């Protein structure tokens, strides 16, 4: 199961980079980056999965005494949690820049924006 999820994550990363490299519309490129972002998060969570264990949250079904033998590693999950929040910040920044570019030239085609400074 974890291998299949990891393969799906890599395929999503490849699809996202293909879309970011072949589209000319700036918003399309940002959407493709979002897809690649989901793929990266999926690969990181699939790396930390261990077979036959459960989520690292302690409650009645998983008491604290036997937790070390029954829960998976929570460190990759904490990393991915941070990565999701930073990903939405990066997406918002890219959208703000695309809106500034659109206000300047009234177009979103990347080949029309050729200056080094604006």
């Amino acid at each position, binding site marked *: 199961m974890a291998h299949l999820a990891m393969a799906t994550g890599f395929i999503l990363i490849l699809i996202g980079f293909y879309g970011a490299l072949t589209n000319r519309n700036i918003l399309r490129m940002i959407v493709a980056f979002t897809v690649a972002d989901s793929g990266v998060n999926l690969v990181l969570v699939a790396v930390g999965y261990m077979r036959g264990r*459960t*989520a690292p*949250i302690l*409650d009645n*079904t*998983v008491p604290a005494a036997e937790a070390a033998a029954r829960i998976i590693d929570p460190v990759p999950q904490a990393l991915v949690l941070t990565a999701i929040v930073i990903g939405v910040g990066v997406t918002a920044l890219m959208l703000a820049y695309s809106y500034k570019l659109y206000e300047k030239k009234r177009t979103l085609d990347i080949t029309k924006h050729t200056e080094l400074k604006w």
Partner: protein
Amino acid sequence: MADILIYIATAVAGVAFLLALYRFLKGPTAADRVVAFDTLTLISVVFIVVIALGEGRGIYLDVAVIYALLSFLGVIAVARYLERGL
């Protein structure tokens, strides 16, 4: 006995998921895809409940609460955009 019934129910819901996915991939207009998106979200809520039953953890149901609230937000945003309102 109950396990076998849950297996059959999940298989039937999986067929419904594939049919809604066909409508999402093919749908002629944007609104068709939004309807398929809504249906896919509700079938995913059923999947989450089945996963929680299989693992035996009640904490997994919190994800379904978030799902039921937030699929609504996406559909409302798309509909307001299509209506030239947002």
